[in-house]
């Protein structure tokens, strides 16, 4: 791979408010826009989860004001069974798409990928701007579903057909479901544009001396994620289009014949609900790795900085992330063990699902192993990064159970599954985002965040999320079914105390997040001005001002002499060597004795 950089399309500094802050082609502004959109989505998504948890344990509680959002869904403020499912669908959709895909990948990736490889901007700045605004349109279409007709769809973020394909199957399944499908299709387009940009930029725009192996781990994560995303979203987009056609154009891709809904024979034939499941999960499983890999990359990047020594093996992390990305395409059927597809295929899908444990374990072992003998620095960012490791392990081990079809016979559709994916996506990935925020806010905004508030935020979130999600696994072991708006079955009554504990933990942990939002907002404007390299980091983002100038490096692109993560060096002028430092020091990587 050559390391001679091509040049991003030259553009002059932006003039005027709109060009600078709204319709900007500057990847830094676009990265912040994605981050802001993700922040808005996560707050809405979190509020939805509070409504859900309150309804589950206090079903007759009237939420003041909710009746104005939906008089049919929440008459007098009391949530109806369908409205619970509608809130749940929007919670999942917002969180998976507009938070977990947006922030660690599009948000941080857009801001830092070009800088970390020493480029002025992305390869296609205008495509980049388009990708954000397309995503924003998708967001608006999705939120519009709250305000139409019967409200948002109730079929879950997974939108299984025929429930999602037939308008008559429930409230919200008419206009709301169509808006959902359009929103997701539009989102796919935004992501495809983004992925193209990331891949081209990474391959073509690396500065002199920046070989692929010298890229920081988060850059690698963004690169691998964009490759995964290109294939995954390319399948979800046509799936959504087919769904829309079934709903409005009379086609029957997903709807078989002889169905009776609302006492009427449905006028469709020849379709297969399993086709939707295959298309959705072929996207859906790589999607969850799209959600976690950037966070893993960001955490690796931050951990090295906190350890003040290189990771035990830079290459192993890269190859493991690649391995996870590759394997992620071979396992989608583990969501469909009980779906009625050929039972032999369950074993075929189970095998690579179990094998994915291996690269994931290697990642964890390297993170923990590199901590040995290090000089761990504790700050808000490193606390969340360490918390990520703990959460990744907790979420990962429940995967051992779900990967085996025979065990899935008992645990499928229970809170065990919900606990598993919330631990990895809803907690670990979010920890990665928090770690990234505390680490990179000084660079993005030129101001330091408040460390004390950050530490309080960590403690509340770390303990709180364990209190919320660990009990989910216990509920699953008893067989507590998921996606229930109320617990009326005989065997569920004794579990209500556990649910109450979870709800209270969720509300408390949610309240703690307000500290983070306050810290972010306050620091943005009133935080201490940040130096160029507040964390003594080695990668190229720390070789420019905080925040960077419009062309990242002031017209003079850096030249790279070293591998990233040259920490713990003997004989250097600090305990680290920056990538673009011309110091001809025997660095730790190059010194075979240290590794």
């Amino acid at each position, binding site marked *: 791979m050559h390391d001679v950089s091509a040049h991003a399309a030259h553009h002059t500094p932006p003039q005027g408010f709109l060009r600078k802050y709204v319709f900007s082609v500057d990847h830094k502004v676009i990265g912040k826009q994605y981050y802001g959109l993700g922040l808005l989505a996560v707050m809405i998504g979190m509020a939805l989860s509070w409504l859900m948890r309150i309804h589950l344990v206090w*079903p*007759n509680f009237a939420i003041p004001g909710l009746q104005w959002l939906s008089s*049919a869904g929440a*008459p*007098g403020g*009391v949530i*109806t*069974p*369908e*409205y619970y499912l509608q809130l749940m669908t929007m919670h999942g959709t917002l969180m998976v798409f507009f938070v977990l895909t947006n922030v660690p990948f599009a948000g941080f990736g857009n801001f830092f990928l070009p800088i970390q490889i020493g480029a002025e901007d992305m390869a296609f700045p205008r495509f980049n701007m388009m990708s954000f605004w397309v995503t924003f349109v998708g967001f608006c279409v999705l939120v519009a579903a709250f305000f139409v007709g*019967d409200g948002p769809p109730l079929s879950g973020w997974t939108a299984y057909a025929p429930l999602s394909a037939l308008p008559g199957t*429930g*409230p919200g399944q008419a206009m709301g479901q169509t808006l959902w499908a359009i929103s997701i299709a539009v989102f796919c387009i935004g992501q495809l544009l983004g992925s193209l940009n990331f891949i081209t930029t990474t391959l073509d725009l690396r500065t002199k001396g920046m070989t692929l192996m010298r890229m920081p781990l988060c850059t690698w994560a963004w690169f691998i994620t964009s490759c995964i995303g290109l294939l995954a979203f390319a399948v979800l987009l046509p799936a959504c289009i087919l769904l829309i056609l079934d709903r409005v154009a009379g086609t029957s891709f997903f709807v078989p014949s002889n169905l009776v809904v*609302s*006492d*009427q024979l449905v006028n469709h034939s020849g379709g297969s609900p399993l086709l939707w499941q295959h298309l959705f999960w072929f996207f859906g499983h790589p999607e969850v790795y799209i959600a976690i890999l950037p966070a893993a990359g960001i955490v690796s990047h931050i951990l090295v900085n906190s350890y003040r020594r290189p990771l035990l093996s830079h290459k192993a992390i890269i190859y493991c992330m690649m391995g996870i990305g590759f394997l992620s395409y071979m396992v989608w059927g583990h969501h469909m063990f009980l779906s009625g597809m050929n039972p032999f295929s369950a074993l075929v899908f189970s095998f690579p699902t179990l094998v994915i444990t291996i690269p994931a374990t290697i990642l964890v072992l390297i993170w923990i192993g590199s901590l040995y003998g290090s000089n761990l620095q504790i700050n808000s960012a490193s606390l969340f990064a360490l918390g990520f490791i703990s959460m990744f392990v907790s979420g990962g081990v429940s995967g051992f159970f779900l990967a085996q079809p025979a065990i899935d016979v008992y645990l499928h559709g229970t809170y065990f599954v919900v606990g598993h994916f919330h631990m990895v996506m809803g907690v670990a990935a979010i920890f990665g985002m928090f770690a990234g925020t505390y680490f990179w806010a000084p660079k993005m905004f030129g101001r330091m965040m408040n460390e004390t508030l950050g530490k309080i935020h960590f403690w509340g979130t770390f303990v709180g999320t364990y209190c919320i999600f660990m009990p989910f696994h216990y509920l699953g072991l008893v067989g507590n079914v998921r996606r229930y708006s*109320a617990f*009326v079955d005989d065997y569920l009554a004794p579990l209500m105390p556990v649910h109450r504990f979870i709800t209270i933990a969720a509300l408390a942990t949610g309240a703690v997040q307000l500290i983070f939002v306050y810290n972010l907002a306050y620091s943005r404007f009133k935080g201490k001005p940040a130096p160029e390299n507040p964390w003594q980091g080695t990668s190229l983002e720390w070789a420019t001002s905080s925040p960077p100038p419009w062309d990242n490096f002031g017209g003079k692109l850096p030249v790279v002499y070293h591998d990233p993560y040259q920490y713990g060096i003997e004989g250097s002028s600090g305990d680290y060597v920056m990538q673009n430092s011309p110091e001809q020091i025997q660095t730790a990587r190059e010194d075979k004795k240290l590794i």
Partner: protein
Amino acid sequence: MKKPNLYRVIGTLSAVLILAFVVTKSQRSVRAAPPPEGGIAGTVKLEGTAPHQRPIDMSKEPACAAVHKANPVTTENVVAGADGGLKNVVVYISEGWSGSPEAATSTPTWDQKGCQYIPHVMGLDVNQHFKVTNSDPTSHNIHPMPKPGGPNHEWNKSQPSGAPPIDAVWGSEEVAIHVKCNIHPWMSGYMVVVKGPYGVSDDSGSFKIENVPPGNYTLTAWQETLGTQTQKITLAAGKPSTASFTFKAK
């Protein structure tokens, strides 16, 4: 000629007036006996044996199953009494009604009790408000299904236990709108929306239509499985009218 005695004249006139008043008043009280003035009454009968009504097993909803443990319920598509009286038949004026749609003052209640609709069949005027209530410990969902593409719109609302009544109204005539509960598939009822006055037959098959001005009308009787029957009727002023219908069991 002798001059008329004024006092005698006034006395006689008063006596005549009082007598007329008494006679008229007693006549009115005679007419107050049913059927009422300006009304139509009658019976609906079933000829033949009612089709077998299947018992309903509500075991999936233990709270409702417990309510009916002593008296099991059955489907209600044809409910006939021992003497052949047919219940739940809606009799209404299908032709000849020229008055503005009756400004219905009452707000009937459609209740969900013991996982059944009470009443099973409800008559309504166009734009007459009605209330849906849930008297059960479980949530229900009310799903009226008017004709697809017709002027009345389908709706589907959940009503948790103890929730406030739902106020609803139909804007157009429709005979009849089937109502079901998706959560409890055996629940079934009908709302018959008409213009003008109507009556619904009771356990003995008797019905009453009140507040009908004199005139020529066509009456229609509707039963959910046995279809409709019509009859012409003339209502004379001051005279009550009767009309009876007989449905043949299929």
